[in-house]
């Protein structure tokens, strides 16, 4: 007997519809899965058999062949378990085929017959066209985000079969009590003093400019970076869905509502491999940290400690906002639009609180400066030195502006950017940038002088203009760019100290 049950399999961050076909025939008892299953998927035979037996259903002592169509698509993970179990039951005539008509099934089975949540439920369900989809209780919230299906669930295989046979009504299962809401994003008012760093954070959030923080240990680089997501605007519907799919496929716990609305903050350790950062891996290609940071902040602490090739693999995604992972067998595209925040010590000795205290040899400084390639360094529109806050300021200064107050100004700047046709000023390029950010006569003279002195490159000029535009947007001033904004933009983009040379003779 033959049975077909629709389900879906995850590849990258995309779900693909898969038809599970089961053929049960006379012959030597056995269970074979064909159609490019990966190891986890092939292990389904043991899970499905045990789940059926635990659910007091009969395991056919006949020859069972499972085909996963289309067969050239690689299938990974355990999301097909449930569909296989039902297809076996139908093919063995323990369940009427009519009972599951117009239904798709997604879920992993425990040996006791429990329906377990799957990674990537959102994209999986999104790939299905059947009007009704059955998912494990743990995947219910995600599955409902798609909004096109009638989403059903059951606790166990036994319960599900009983419902399908018409013995029981569909159970009323509510999603797990929502885990306590994530702590509210930490507030900018915790930052005392450090006016330059505050300004840089505000500009980074307002214009989507990448930010490099250079400072000794204890200067508060991490603390500053953590405050950036709270300044970024919440993700709009499209970006939220896109980011949620990535988080779902990456196995990251989703927020209580299911949809990722708040700008994510990802801070991979410097030991991260290129696959962990960019995405990829064996089997179904997983999204990397840069995609999990989509719509939010990717924070690389101790940037000088990352492997050089790992850092350089960031360059294309930084430019294009997507990352294409290609393998011999497959090719996927992940979204990767984020604000990059890098943090570095000013030099390897870590003692360089200020000029005149560094104990590094010239050779060590040179080696250190090579850890960050020029092209990557160029991607940072904002590079500032961060020092520990002045002790007096730390104790006595009134708290600075709160994140909420700053975020209002930022939302304003983002609105101006949208009027220019981009999500953030940092995405303005070429002609577009020149039109949006004309220079006042005074500013033009100022920049020409900087170019002649060699303190500014042609590429630097474009980035300075872009940052100056954001600065002026923040003040609510319309272009042309004035000399104050241009000057501050240049001071927000200093040469890192390990590159700025010692005084020669």
């Amino acid at each position, binding site marked *: 007997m033959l049975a077909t049950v629709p389900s879906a399999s995850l590849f990258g961050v995309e779900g693909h519809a898969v038809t599970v076909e089961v053929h049960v025939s006379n012959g030597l008892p056995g269970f074979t899965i064909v159609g490019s299953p990966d190891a986890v998927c092939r292990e389904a035979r043991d899970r499905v058999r045990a789940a059926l037996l635990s659910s007091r259903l009969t395991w056919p002592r006949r020859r069972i062949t499972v085909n996963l169509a289309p067969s050239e698509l690689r299938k990974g993970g355990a999301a097909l378990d449930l569909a296989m179990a039902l297809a076996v039951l139908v093919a063995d005539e323990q369940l009427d085929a009519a009972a599951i008509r117009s239904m798709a099934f997604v879920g992993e089975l425990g040996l006791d017959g429990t329906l377990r949540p799957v990674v990537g439920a959102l994209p999986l369900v999104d790939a299905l066209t059947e009007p009704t989809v059955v998912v494990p209780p743990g995947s219910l919230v995600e599955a409902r985000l798609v909004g096109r299906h009638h989403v059903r669930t059951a606790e166990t295989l036994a319960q599900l079969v009983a419902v399908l046979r018409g013995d029981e009504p569909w159970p009323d299962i509510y999603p797990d009590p929502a885990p306590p809401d994530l702590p509210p994003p930490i507030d900018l008012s915790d930052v005392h003093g450090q*006016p330059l760093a505050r*300004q840089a954070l505000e500009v980074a959030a307002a214009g989507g400019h990448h930010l490099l923080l250079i400072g000794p240990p204890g200067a508060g680089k991490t603390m500053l970076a953590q405050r950036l997501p709270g300044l970024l605007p919440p993700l709009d519907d499209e970006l939220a869905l896109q980011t949620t799919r990535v988080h779902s496929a990456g196995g990251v716990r989703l927020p209580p509502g299911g949809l990722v609305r708040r700008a994510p903050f990802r801070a991979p350790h410097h030991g991260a491999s290129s696959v962990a950062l960019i995405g990829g891996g064996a089997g179904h290609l997983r999204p990397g940290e840069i995609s999990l940071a989509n719509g939010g902040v990717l924070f690389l602490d101790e940037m000088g400690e990352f492997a050089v090739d790992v850092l350089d693999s960031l360059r294309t995604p930084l430019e294009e906002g997507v990352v294409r992972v290609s393998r011999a067998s497959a090719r996927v595209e992940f979204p990767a639009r984020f604000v990059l925040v890098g943090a570095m010590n000013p030099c390897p000795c870590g003692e360089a609180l200020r*000029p005149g205290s560094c104990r590094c040899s010239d050779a060590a400084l040179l080696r250190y400066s090579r850890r960050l390639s020029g092209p990557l360094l160029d991607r940072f529109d904002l590079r500032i030195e961060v020092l520990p806050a002045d002790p007096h300021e730390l104790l006595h200064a009134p708290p600075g502006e709160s994140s909420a107050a700053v975020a209002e100004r930022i939302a304003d700047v983002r609105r101006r950017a949208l009027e220019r046709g981009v999500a953030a000023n940092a995405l303005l390029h070429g002609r577009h940038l020149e039109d949006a950010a004309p220079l006042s006569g005074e500013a033009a003279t100022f920049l020409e002088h900087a170019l002649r002195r060699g303190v500014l490159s042609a590429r630097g000029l474009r980035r300075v203009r872009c940052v100056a535009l954001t600065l002026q947007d923040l003040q609510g001033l319309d272009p042309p760019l004035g000399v104050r*904004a241009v000057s*501050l933009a240049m*001071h927000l983009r200093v040469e890192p100290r390990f590159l700025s040379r010692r*005084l*020669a*003779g």
Partner: protein
Amino acid sequence: MSSDREAVAEPASGGSAPTALPDEAWVTALATLDQMGSARLGALLAESTPETAWDRVVHGGLRASAGPALHRALGPQREAVLRRWREQAQRTDVTALWRRHVDRRVGVAIAGSAAYPAAFAGDPEPPAIVFSVGDPDVIAGPRVAVVGTRDCTRYGYDLAHRLGAELADAGVRIVSGLALGIDGAAHAGALEAGGAPPIAVVGCGLDRPYPARNAALWRRVARAGVVLSEYPLGSPPLAWHFPSRNRLIAALADLVVVVESQEVGGSMLTVDCAITRGVDVMAVPGPVTAPASAGTNRLLSEGRGVVRDAVDVLVALGLSGGGRRSPQDRRPPPDPGDGRVLDAFDWQPATLDHLVLRTGLALLDLTVALDRLVEGGWIEQRGGWFERVARPGG
């Protein structure tokens, strides 16, 4: 090269190279060997003539006959050292090596020769050989070593530059190491003044200026004065060369002035060498909170002489100071608003955060004022740091 290969093949023929080479050539060859410091070279030459010493290295004759002094100088790894030397020596073409030194007009002086600088003759650790580019005769005359950290502040740089200029102007030869920071600043000042010839001692071969960024300065010193080294052409700037170089700076100086130094570092080694040799040490004071002045301030607290300007040094040398001169400041004064920003500077590096705190100005107003001050030569920017510039004319 071929004659040397034969020497390897036929050890019995011994020293088959043309014998017209002077002693200096053999010492130069010995000095090219790995880990050959002045102690080993001195011990080797105390036992035999340079040519015999080379011959013994090439043919492994040292093991048997090493005297107690040489035995000690070779240290516990002596077997490995000798094996390494032998391999190296057998590959060395002494004639070609010597030719290179002659062709490049490198002065070579070995201990005891007429060309050997008198200042080294009575030294407790004299160099066995001294290479020079420039005119070695300029060494005769009053000499002051101006030394300090490579990672100096603008304050230290400016002071070293001014001391170099004023001392050279008063006829004092500036001795230094051509390193980045204070060393280079002192020589740059001396050259600008065009007074007494500068003297540099370096830690590598004279054909490979190090650090590369001071290469132009190095050539100017060689043209106007002399650059000295213990190491033959082609020697790399190895880490252990530098403490040794510092001892020569101390040996050459009548007085050592430390402009800026951290608590420990190369300049403090120079100071120790100077004290062992009975050479006076003076220091430039800095803020007690400044890491770059931690070493110099400690020297002062130990009772070393204070250097405020060249006159202090000249007085210590017993030379007439000619009175304190205040140099003409040719910079146009900043406008009053910018002047207030300038007043917010002490002589220590400051960041925008410091300056916002001191002036109460908004960042947008502060940076334009700073830009104008940099333009006027009052302030210098390095990375995110700003330092007040003392030296008139930039």
